[in-house]
């Protein structure tokens, strides 16, 4: 496992980097409006009524943004949790922990692709 991870490291790192930068940039506005402002009633929820939400998300750019919002934080998260595990004396189990985390991120990313394709 460790060996496979070593081979994949460049891709993982790219995805992590994208999550760290692009992911953070996209997620901030999303969380402020969708996660906080609308549920707290600060913004009229009709802004994200189904027709408009669907229209926004199913445009070409929209699909891309949605996929980015799903996959990028997952990879940033998976990679960071892995290094956290190493920091807590997890050097030895790194192969297994990393493998599981990336597998989870990969599965969720594929589901994200399906979700976006369904729009």
């Amino acid at each position: 496992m460790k060996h496979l991870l070593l081979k994949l490291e460049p891709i993982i790192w790219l995805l992590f980097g994208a999550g760290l930068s692009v992911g953070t940039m996209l997620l901030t506005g999303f969380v402020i409006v969708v996660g906080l402002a609308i549920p707290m009633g600060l913004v009229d929820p009709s802004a994200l009524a189904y027709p408009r939400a669907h229209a926004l998300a199913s445009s070409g750019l929209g699909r891309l943004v949605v996929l980015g919002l799903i996959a990028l934080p997952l990879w940033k998260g998976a990679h960071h949790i892995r290094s956290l595990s190493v920091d807590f004396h997890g050097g030895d189990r790194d192969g297994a922990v990393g493998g599981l985390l990336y597998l989870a991120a990969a599965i969720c990313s594929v589901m994200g692709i399906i979700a976006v394709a369904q729009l």
Partner: protein
Amino acid sequence: MAGAAHPEAMAPPKKGPTRTAPPRMPESWWGAQRIRTYLLFGATGIVYFVAGTVVLKLAWALGTGPEAWDRALGNLSHPLYLIFHALTLVSLIFVGLRAFGTMMPKMQPRNGPLPVLAAGTVKGLFLSVWVALTVLLGLVLAGKIFP
């Protein structure tokens, strides 16, 4: 010193010629503010991971149909979600400041085709793009532009 480091940390490949005491970790590892900040930075990974799945769930609902979407959106008013998103926002700001403020300026390739900019310039650039994107996406999502 707190706790033992990995017994092989920086150890020579073969056994040394004299008996050594195993390496130890610096006390500052958890005790010092700097390291705590770094570990918290790593811990935001958990928040990000969950946030990704939340968006996945919303996207799935949006693809399923209007009722599913309304239900999913309605769920977000649950206090647990609200707390989580507040936490996410804090994490995002923390990560953004650290990533764009200190990490990106250091990562600039020095011998690439691009000119090497002053750390402050890079920091400024990234921070402003971040704010701009956030405002733009926020306005779109809030229905203020692109009605």
